[in-house]
């Protein structure tokens, strides 16, 4: 029932991290280039930026309590909206050949537009701020979700649909209890792609149009030649990306447990 886990899932999989860190430390110290500060410098700068606050606030600084939640909030808002819109439209597209024929080419065109190019447009449309950023994220990341959902909804097992028809399930029940669950593995594949894309768009949108957030902090550090600060922000973004991905995978494992198990046994 429980086959050997792949190497990356074993508890020992973290060992390359300290090795890489040690190598990084030695190399940067040997090079002595100011643009490449050693990791110890980066980490102490990170502590200074985000973890040097008063003890009663868990040592979180003002920056940690304002910039990070602001960024993460916008990212999650844009991503969640994209999930809602993308799944709904995707399933409609997947179930309706007519809609698919008319809107399909449009969707593929929209998807092909590199999302950062949306920025000038949305900056013109909305004032700089959360609304503009959430929209950039929404329009940038909705496509993988939409296309994957449509794909999933298109390939529902015909016998499942016949069963639903034979037992007279209503339209709504058919969508909610047969089509949506069938498409869910694909929907999740799209959501996962979009999550990493959303992180990128969050930073980019903050670099050009924001007064707070992690991207703004990065810009600020760069402008003041605070290279450890720049590096620290990049490391923070990497950690955030890993955390989101891990949380997402955990949720997916729970929600799609039937899918993994059913595919293992058949």
């Amino acid at each position, binding site marked *: 029932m429980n086959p050997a886990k792949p190497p990356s899932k074993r508890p020992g999989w973290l060992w390359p991290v300290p090795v890489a860190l040690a190598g990084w430390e030695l190399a940067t110290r040997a090079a002595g280039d100011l643009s490449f500060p050693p990791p110890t410098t980066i980490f102490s700068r990170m502590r200074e930026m985000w973890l040097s606050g008063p003890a009663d606030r868990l040592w979180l600084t003002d920056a940690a309590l304002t910039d990070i939640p602001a960024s993460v909030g916008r990212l999650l808002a844009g991503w969640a909206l994209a999930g809602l819109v993308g799944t709904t439209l995707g399933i409609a597209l997947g179930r309706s050949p007519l809609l698919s024929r008319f809107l399909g080419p449009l969707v593929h065109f929209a998807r092909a537009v590199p999302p950062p190019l949306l920025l000038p447009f949305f900056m013109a449309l909305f004032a700089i701020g959360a609304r503009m950023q959430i929209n950039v994220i929404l329009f940038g990341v909705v496509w993988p979700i939409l296309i994957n959902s449509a794909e999933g909804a298109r390939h529902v*097992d015909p*016998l*499942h649909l*016949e*069963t639903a*028809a*034979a*037992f*007279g*399930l*209503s339209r709504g*029940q058919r969508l909610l*209890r*047969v089509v949506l*669950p069938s498409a*869910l593995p694909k929907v999740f594949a799209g959501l996962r792609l979009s999550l990493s894309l959303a992180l990128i768009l969050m930073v980019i949108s903050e670099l050009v149009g924001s007064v707070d957030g992690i991207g703004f902090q990065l810009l600020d550090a760069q402008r003041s030649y605070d290279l450890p600060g720049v590096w620290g922000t990049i490391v923070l973004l990497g950690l955030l990306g890993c955390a989101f991905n891990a949380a997402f995978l955990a949720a997916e494992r729970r929600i799609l447990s*039937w*899918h993994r*198990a*059913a595919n293992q*046994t*058949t």
Partner: protein
Amino acid sequence: MLEISNLTHTYGSGPGSHHALGGVDLSVAEGELVCIVGPSGCGKSTLLRSVAGLLRPGGGEVLFNGAPVAGTPKDLAVVFQDYSRSLFPWMSVADNVSLPLRRKGLDRPRREEAALEALTQVGLEEAGAKYPWQLSGGMQQRVAIARALAYRPALLLMDEPFGSVDAQTREDLEDLTLRVRGHHAMTILLITHDIDESVYVGDRVVVLSGAPATVVGDLRVDLPEPREQIATREHPGFVRLRAEVGRLVRGPRPAAQHPTPETV
């Protein structure tokens, strides 16, 4: 109850087409249990799918309670031949069984009760919380049967419903079918490839020819009621009917000197 007249169907067109039904005539009275037998691939499932409104036949007519079948008729349940694929893997066994009951307007406790009752009838009262893929093939088949029974349809269509269960369970399910039919006044159309089974459970046995399928025999089963696995199967009438159906299924192939029995 059910009137099928001159039903024809051809899959595909051109050289790759397959003429599956070649004019099937059949009428089923209310409360009857009609077994359909015929060689493999002759078009039994095609016939059933036309009755269920899942397939628009090429020609002919299916009348259900006097009205032509367009879309799936209400008050009908199907046990599909491919039972494992007809269960939803994302729902528990109990949810699979109770899902169609929403249409009957039952509230949640009544649905759960009906699902448990049907699962108990097929001997799976312990399996409600499991998922279909956690069960063996024979158990999945019984879940599909339970789902149809819980629905209490006026017309029950079963496509080789006892194909992958062991002999003992098979006999139990045959008897269950007979009991349920008695209690709930269901009309049942049961497809099987087992000639003994068709004679044992049926009020009538309808024999289809090889493709394109037509009705080559329609035998009334006059055996003492209630049927009983041992006594019925050793009844002289059973033995005679079984031979008769067997000859019809094999078709007018080998013994050319014997006239093939067309009617009874």
